[in-house]
């Protein structure tokens, strides 16, 4: 559609929103950590909104600075007290109209992804959803910033964990950590046995995904270090079966690691759960049952087809 609209515009918009939240905190004297939180969100606004035009090193120091604010407990969430009676009254008045702006977002994001990039389409979907929500509720444009800011503060530092984890993964890759781990796994187990090879490969995918928070990072390392030499080359296994089920075994690791922050920690904050491990605990039986199934199918089929 319009070639002028890029993802970078949405980063700037996000930066402006976060900056507005920071200014809102600066103007609320009752905030438990007024200045620490203001600096934290302003710093994040700069890193997201202007990150591309700043030197990488400066952004790096900025991120470490945000980490230092979190480590010294300078960022806090105020207690939010909503008006329950007003919400009830509004729900009665608006009826089902209060629901559909939420559905506008995925509908537009899905349709739009056929025309523009999927992330740009999602950004447009969010803007359309916001417009629809403002139209339905007849509220002021300041309200979504204030209400969104409430949710943003609930998320707190978990909002920069996914990017920081991507950084850790990148540094692990540059330092060659994966090759080292694959060597240790291959050296410690009798992986030339067909069943041991399958278990070591699928288990390694889980362990490595748990450590990195990302099955995509684990896959090349475990496949080149354990899967190909021992399942395919030594025992004549089928590479496609190994690869498909190996990747799906990695996802079992994603279900149980706090390192997969946007899947397992962000919802803890979004849903206001008290225990950081609540989502992981709900998912652990899924992970175990799916992993065992993957190993069984791989062992039953990989040496046969």
């Amino acid at each position, binding site marked *: 559609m319009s070639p002028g609209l890029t993802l970078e515009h949405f980063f700037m918009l996000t930066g402006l929103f976060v900056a507005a939240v920071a200014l809102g905190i600066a103007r609320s004297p009752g905030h438990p950590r007024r200045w620490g939180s203001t600096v934290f969100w302003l710093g994040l606004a700069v890193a997201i909104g202007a990150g591309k035009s700043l030197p990488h090193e400066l952004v790096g120091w900025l991120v470490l600075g945000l980490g230092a604010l979190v480590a010294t407990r300078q960022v806090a969430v105020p207690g939010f007290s909503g008006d329950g009676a007003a919400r009830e009254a509004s729900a009665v008045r608006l009826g089902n109209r209060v629901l559909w702006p939420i559905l506008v977002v995925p509908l537009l994001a899905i349709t739009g992804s056929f025309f523009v990039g999927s992330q740009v389409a999602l950004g447009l979907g969010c803007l359309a959803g916001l417009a629809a929500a403002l139209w339905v509720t007849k509220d002021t444009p300041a309200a979504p910033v204030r209400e969104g800011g409430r949710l943003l503060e609930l998320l707190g530092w978990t909002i920069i964990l996914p990017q920081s984890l*991507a950084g850790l993964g990148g540094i692990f890759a540059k330092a060659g950590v994966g090759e080292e781990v694959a060597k240790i796994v291959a050296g410690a187990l009798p992986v030339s046995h067909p069943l041991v090879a399958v278990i070591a490969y699928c288990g390694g995918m889980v362990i490595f995904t748990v450590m990195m928070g990302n099955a995509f990072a684990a896959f090349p390392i475990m496949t080149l270090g354990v899967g190909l030499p021992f399942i395919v080359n030594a025992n004549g296994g089928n590479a496609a079966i190994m690869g498909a089920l190996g*990747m799906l075994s990695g996802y079992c690791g994603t279900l149980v690691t706090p390192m997969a922050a946007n899947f397992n920690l962000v919802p803890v904050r979004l849903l206001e759960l008290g225990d950081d491990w*609540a989502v992981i605990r709900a998912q652990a039986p899924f992970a175990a*049952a799916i992993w065992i199934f993957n190993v069984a199918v791989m062992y039953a089929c990989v040496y046969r087809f």
Partner: protein
Amino acid sequence: MIKLIGILLVAVGFGFRVNALVVVLVAGVGTGLAAGFSLREVVALMGRFFVENRGLVLPIVLMLPVVGLLEKHGLQERIATLMRQARAATAGRIFWLYQALRGGLSVLGISLGSHAGMVRPLIVPMGEAAAKGRGELTEATRERVRAHGAAAENVGNFFSDDILVAVGALLLVKGVLDNAGVPVTLEQIKLWSVPTALWVLVIGWWRYRALDRWLARRKDGDK
């Protein structure tokens, strides 16, 4: 061996429940230094990866104003009213249906929602209201129901995107194997991803039925 210091730091940090962000940043800098980069190089790397991966938070942050505004105007209360009318709805059935729908659409390469887009505004309020239809929830019960709602999103999202449309995971598997000299076709990988996707539906049915039974038993105990 010293390169593995980052993994050690992560394990120890999580073991002692140190703040995850602090653990990750320290482990990143520690690994970079151990691998022979200078401090400035490591910090620049952290900055580069941060900027390149900003897209990870975009769908979350941009969704917040929409969700926040609608919640102020009674979104959750409206859902609760609707769920009181749907007698057959239980938390477990809602989560299983959402997991199946999320997975089914992801087979077609369509990403329906996310924790910020669907789970917090719609799915969890629906599940909670359905559970509440059979009595007030204690804090612990509410947390358990909410955590299962988040799990439905993740499980639905993960295990069925390798089946029809060639997305990142599929191309990564093919790319790694092709580059290693054992060429595979996308069709083979897709075919062997099907059994797990079906199994995940079975496991979901089992898990959410267990949740419903647990919720039902709890009510009997309260009476």
